[in-house]
C-alpha cells in the first residue's frame, strides 16, 4: 500500500515537472477544429434531408426601432435578412433596430416534436377507428399497428400506471402517460435516423414535457398531499418548520430532474456519435489522410455499437420518464386510508 502511494507520488511529480514543455503548443490552441460539435446538436432553422436543406419559416414577435411591436412571418432566414429589417450577426438573426420580444420560429427540433406528436395522434386515431368498427373488441386485433398499440398500451396501464397510482384513480392518467411514452420514444428514435435532429436533445423540449407532468401532478394533489408538503406529520415541531422549504423545493426539483435526465441522456449519445465520427476528420487534419483511413475502421465499428446502445437508451429513457411521472402522480394522489403513517396510528392506538 505504501509502495503504491510512493509510486503514485513519484508519477505525479514527474508529470508536474514535464508540463512546462507543453507551453509551445499554445500558438495552435486557437485553431478551428474540423468538426463543430455543439453547432450540430443545437437547433437549426432548416431541415436537413438527403437532397439538401429545406429552410424553415421564421416567426418573430418583435419591437422595431419606432417602439411598436409586430408579428412578422418570413419563409426562411434568408428572406428575413433580404427584407432589410434583419441582419445576421454571428449566426443569429436579429433586427437592425429594435429587439425581438419572442422568437417563435419553427426550428428543426420543433418540427420533429410536432412530427412525433402527429405520428402518435395518427396511430391512435387509426386504431380508434378499428376499435369502433369492432375489430379489437368483438374479434381479435388485426394487423401490426393495432397489435403493437395494444402491447404498449397494456404495458403502460398494467406495469406503469397501476402499481404506482391509486387503484381508483389510475385510469384517468393512463392516456397522458401513454402519450408521453410514445412521444418521447418516437422523438428519440427519429433522432437516430441519418440527417434528422433529436428533438429531445434540447432542454426546452424536455422542459416542456416536464412542465406538463408538473402541472398534472399538482392538479391531482389531494388534501393529504398538501398537508404533507406544508406540515409534515409524525416529526417534532422544529423539524416540521425545517421541512417546509425542503418539501417546496422538492416539488420543483423532481420535474427538473426529469427534464435534465432525458436531455442529458439524449444529448450525450448524440455528442458521442459526432465526436467519434469526427475523430476521422480530426486525424485527417492532424496526421494526414492515411491515419484518417486507419482510424475510420475503428470509428465506424464503434459508432455502430454505440448506435445499438443509443437505441436501447432511447426506449429506456422514455420508459423511465413515464415511470417517474407515474410515481410522482401516485405520490400526489395518495389518499388518506392508504397512507402508511395513518394506518399505523389508527391500527395500534
Amino acid at each position, binding site marked *: 500500500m505504501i509502495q503504491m502511494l510512493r509510486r503514485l507520488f513519484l508519477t505525479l511529480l514527474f508529470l508536474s515537472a514535464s*508540463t512546462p514543455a*507543453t*507551453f509551445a503548443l*499554445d500558438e495552435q*490552441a486557437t485553431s478551428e477544429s474540423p468538426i463543430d*460539435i*455543439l453547432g450540430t446538436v443545437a437547433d437549426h432553422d432548416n431541415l436537413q434531408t438527403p437532397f439538401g436543406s429545406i429552410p424553415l419559416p421564421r416567426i418573430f414577435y418583435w419591437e422595431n426601432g419606432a417602439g411598436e411591436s409586430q408579428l412578422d412571418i418570413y419563409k426562411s432566414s434568408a428572406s428575413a435578412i433580404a427584407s432589410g429589417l434583419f441582419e445576421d450577426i454571428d449566426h443569429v438573426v436579429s433586427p437592425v433596430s429594435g429587439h425581438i420580444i419572442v422568437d417563435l420560429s419553427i426550428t428543426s427540433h420543433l418540427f420533429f416534436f410536432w412530427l412525433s406528436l402527429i405520428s402518435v395522434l395518427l396511430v391512435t386515431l387509426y386504431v380508434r377507428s378499428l376499435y369502433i368498427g369492432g375489430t379489437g373488441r368483438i374479434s381479435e386485433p388485426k394487423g401490426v399497428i393495432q397489435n403493437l398499440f395494444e402491447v404498449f398500451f397494456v404495458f403502460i396501464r398494467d*406495469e406503469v400506471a397501476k*402499481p404506482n397510482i391509486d387503484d381508483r384513480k389510475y385510469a384517468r392518467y393512463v392516456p397522458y402517460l401513454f402519450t408521453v411514452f410514445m412521444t418521447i420514444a418516437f422523438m428519440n428514435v427519429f433522432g437516430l435516423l441519418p440527417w434528422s435532429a433529436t428533438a429531445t436533445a434540447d432542454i426546452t423540449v424536455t422542459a416542456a414535457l416536464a412542465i406538463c407532468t408538473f402541472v398534472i401532478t399538482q392538479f391531482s394533489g389531494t388534501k393529504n398531499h398538501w398537508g404533507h408538503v406544508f406540515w409534515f406529520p409524525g416529526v417534532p415541531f422544529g423539524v416540521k418548520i425545517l421541512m417546509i422549504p425542503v418539501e417546496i423545493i422538492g416539488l420543483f426539483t423532481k420535474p427538473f*430532474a426529469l427534464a*435534465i*435526465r432525458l*436531455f*442529458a*441522456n439524449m*444529448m*450525450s449519445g448524440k*455528442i458521442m456519435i459526432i465526436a467519434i465520427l469526427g475523430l476521422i476528420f480530426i486525424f485527417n487534419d492532424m496526421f494526414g489522410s492515411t491515419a484518417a483511413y486507419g482510424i475510420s475502421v475503428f470509428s465506424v465499428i464503434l459508432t455502430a455499437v454505440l448506435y445499438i446502445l443509443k437505441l436501447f437508451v432511447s426506449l*429506456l*429513457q422514455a420508459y*423511465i420518464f413515464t*415511470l*417517474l411521472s407515474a*410515481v410522482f402522480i401516485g405520490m400526489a394522489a395518495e389518499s388518506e386510508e392508504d397512507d402508511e403513517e395513518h394506518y399505523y396510528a389508527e391500527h395500534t392506538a
Partner: protein
Amino acid sequence: MEYVYLAAGFGAGIVAIGAALGIGMIGKAATESIARQPEAAGDIRGAMILTSAFIEGVALFGAIICIILALK
C-alpha cells in the same frame, strides 16, 4: 495553458466513478435478492431499473457541466 479542459476531463472521470459505484452496488443487491427469492424477480428488476435511472440522472448532470466547460 488551458486548464479548463483538464478540469472538464477530471470532472467527467470522477462523475463516472461515482455513477459506476452507485449502480454497481444496486446491481449487487438486486442480484443477491433475486437469488434469495426468485419469485420476486419482477419487482426487484423494476426497482433496480428505477433506482439506476435516478443515479444516472445525477451522473449526467455532472457530465453536462463538464461538456459545457470543455466546449465553451
